[in-house]
């Protein structure tokens, strides 16, 4: 076959599907190109991989909570979720996630606003994009180190505040290694995540809308309250939920920072996995994991609903 044959073949395709010669996939010969069995076999590696390393672990994590150590079915672990200690752990996980998500989304949205009108490919933007991607990923051990160096008991800032104005941020005890410290540290990766997720939405605001607002005698204030905010709201609250999920599921930072006890759920899962005797109940890790998944599913469902609304304006 030579290049000269190509137009004939292409016109052949066009004849068989006169309405949508290119975009309609069902009518093209390429469907017949791979034999039926071969193309289904092509899906096998990924399917097997995902079943073994995502499907089975997820099911195991959720289901183990329903079994006792000897393999018999029980609701004891699930009932253990109602234990006051466990409930208060879920509560502090909730508050740490909610507060850092709110601070992160507001500050992040302000940064996005500040970036409006800068050139998308410019040096400032690509620097902030990359820095945000790194810092949003910058959880864990390294982040804990950064904050011990920055506002730990021996840090320059803390010593300087104490020496110059006599202000001791740790006068009531060193809160950095407690849930209060997590608020400060988590905010550090929440803001960059907000910048990454919210900036595309803010850029979707069309200049025509501002022009229409001006033509109809609107002010800057009416533009933001009547046009921009309603359009951006689903995306903003969607990002807020994503930030909440991000903090709620974060483990490494807390593991490296919190010195005593298990004040948040992921640390409680660690305690259950490592000691196996937390609260005197086996397989408690599974029950805690189930509790986390329930919260995550609700939050991510809300996120996808809001995402659906967002995409309406991003055509």
């Amino acid at each position, binding site marked *: *076959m030579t290049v000269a044959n190509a137009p004939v*073949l292409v016109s052949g395709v066009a004849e068989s599907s006169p309405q949508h010669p290119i975009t309609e*996939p069902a009518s093209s010969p*390429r469907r017949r*190109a791979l034999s039926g069995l071969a*193309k289904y076999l*092509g899906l096998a*590696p*990924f399917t097997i991989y995902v079943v*073994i*390393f*995502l499907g*089975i*672990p*997820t099911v*195991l*994590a959720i289901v*183990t909570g329903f079994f006792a150590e000897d393999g018999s079915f029980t609701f004891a672990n699930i009932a253990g979720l109602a234990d006051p200690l466990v409930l208060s752990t879920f509560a502090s996980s909730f508050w740490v996630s909610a507060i850092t998500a709110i601070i992160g989304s507001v500050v992040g949205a*302000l940064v996005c606003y*500040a*970036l*409006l*009108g800068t050139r998308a490919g410019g040096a400032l933007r*690509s620097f902030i994009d*990359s*820095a945000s*991607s*790194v810092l949003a*990923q*910058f*959880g*864990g*051990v*390294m982040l804990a*180190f*950064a*904050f*011990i*160096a920055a506002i730990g008991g021996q840090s*320059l*800032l803390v010593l300087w505040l104490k020496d110059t104005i006599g202000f001791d941020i740790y006068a009531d005890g060193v809160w950095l290694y407690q849930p209060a410290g997590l608020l400060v540290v988590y905010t*550090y990766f929440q*803001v960059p995540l907000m910048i990454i997720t919210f900036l595309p939405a803010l850029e979707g605001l069309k200049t025509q809308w*501002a022009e229409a607002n001006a033509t109809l005698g609107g002010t*800057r204030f009416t*533009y933001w309250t009547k046009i921009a905010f309603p359009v951006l709201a689903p995306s903003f609250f969607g990002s807020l939920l994503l930030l909440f*999920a991000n903090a709620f*599921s*974060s*483990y*490494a930072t807390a*593991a*490296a920072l919190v010195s005593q006890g298990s004040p948040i759920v*992921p640390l409680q899962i*660690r305690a259950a*996995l490592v000691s196996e005797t937390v609260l005197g109940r086996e397989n408690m890790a599974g029950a805690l*994991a189930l509790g986390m*998944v329930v919260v995550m*599913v609700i939050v*991510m469902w809300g996120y996808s609903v809001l995402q659906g609304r967002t995409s309406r304006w991003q055509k």
Partner: protein
Amino acid sequence: MNPSKTTRWLILGVVGVVFAFPIFAMIEFTFRDGLSGGHTLDHWTGLFTEDAARTYRNLFTGIGNSLLLAVVTVGIVLVVLLPTMILVHLQFPKLKRVLEFVCIIPITVPAIVLVVGLAPVYSVVVQVAGGSIWTLAFAYGITVLPYAYRAIQANLDAVDVVTLSEAGRTLSANWGRVLWHVLLPNLKRGVLAASFISVAVVLGEFTIASLLNRVNLQTALLQVGQSDPYVAIIFALLALLFAFVLLLSIGRLGRTRRTGSES
């Protein structure tokens, strides 16, 4: 309705300073001379002494393990995820939503939950494939799934893969040729971005390695941090710099494409 110059630089300035501060604090910390308040280069020069390789043996093991894991994880993305995404795009358009759903599950099922179920799975993996560190990459392939998926999918959506592969087939190329000579060159940007973000995620991973008792960069950093915080922070800084360069180059990939000879 863009912000005024003053507003823009006020916001960026304040947030920038606050966010740069912990990084500078880390840098300052690596030059500290104990608790004396003075500064010294000893912690940096100490890395180049003959003893360093022995003193920080665990740390270097962790770095080696993490680099190996990064390579194997990228391999999984390229060999398992990428062909599947192309296949679904070309042959099973109806499965696109299913694939997307599967690929973002790891966001909803975070590592700390997954690890509860991974522990029993890995006790089988160890029996089948041995306890070598590289097997951990199977779990990391799942961790990076949402990031790698998004990077590749963005590229798939931007290129008319269907027409390209039809053109290739029309010109009598077999599927292997189409994949290698037509599709991959067009998907280079997405594939590179997916690989880079996977490397960055793997180098930062702590949860799974720590709870399955494996040694990687992050678990080693935490361990070293207890005896020699200066060296731990030096390596944390280097890892951070490396990740920043990786992600900055993803941004540059996007730009060279726009200005390049696409037409």
